């Protein structure tokens, strides 16, 4: 699904040079997170103060594993988009801004990969 008109896509209009892509991605990821909120609240409350065996068995179900990977992907994507806006707004030294944006992207990607592998390890019982 693409909600940009073809001309806007070709020109990459807007001050960022990428049109409304960033803005829309932030909203779509927010909507997904809104749906996942019910699950994360339920899981968080039910596992608060849980011992190792309880937490381990809860996180070994395919449903919780899948939701964890979905949540990690959406959270770290939304995090990257949000921190990007904050950095672009407040950091005015071009080199530092570029470096911070790269670090945020890298950190969010690594955080997602580690979350996904941890969730899979718990689900597959390795």
């Amino acid at each position, binding site marked *: 699904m693409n909600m940009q008109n073809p001309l806007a896509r070709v020109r990459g209009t807007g001050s960022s040079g990428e049109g409304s892509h960033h803005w829309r991605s932030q909203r779509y990821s927010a909507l997904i997170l809104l749906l996942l909120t019910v699950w994360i609240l339920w899981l*968080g409350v039910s596992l608060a*103060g849980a011992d190792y065996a309880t*937490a381990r068995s809860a996180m070994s179900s395919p449903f919780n594993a899948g939701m964890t990977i979905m949540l990690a992907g959406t959270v*770290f994507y939304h*995090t990257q988009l949000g921190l990007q806006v*904050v950095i672009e707004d407040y950091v005015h030294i071009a080199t530092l801004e570029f470096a911070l944006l790269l670090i945020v992207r890298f950190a969010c990607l690594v955080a997602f990969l580690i*979350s996904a592998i*941890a*969730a899979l390890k718990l689900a597959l019982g390795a």
Partner: protein
Amino acid sequence: MSTTKRPMSPYMLGPYYKFQITSLLSILNRLTGVFMSVVSAPLLLCWLIALASGEEAYTGLSAFLGSVLGILIIAASVFSFSFHLMGGIRHLIWDAGWMLENEQVRLSGWVAIIGSVLLTLVVLGAGL
């Protein structure tokens, strides 16, 4: 790059403008987002890693989360989550083109504040 000191618009909070709930909630939405990015999300990641690493790591992290500092971090995270959630819903409503009149924006601001405090209390009450 530029050496010219251009005049800048005064910051939205502070002595220059009359207090407005809109600007306070705007910056709070950012601050809670940054807090979760820097503290809460890494903490959840640590929890997953600890759980996947074994009982010793998990027990160690649990002990820290049960300490005063741990509980403070959890409480701040739950509040940030609740507030950013309410603020986010408010933004999505605006993006749909609704509730954009001044009175409605102020009203939704108060709903977001009260709602996030209530949600924080409910979640902490249920979890602790």
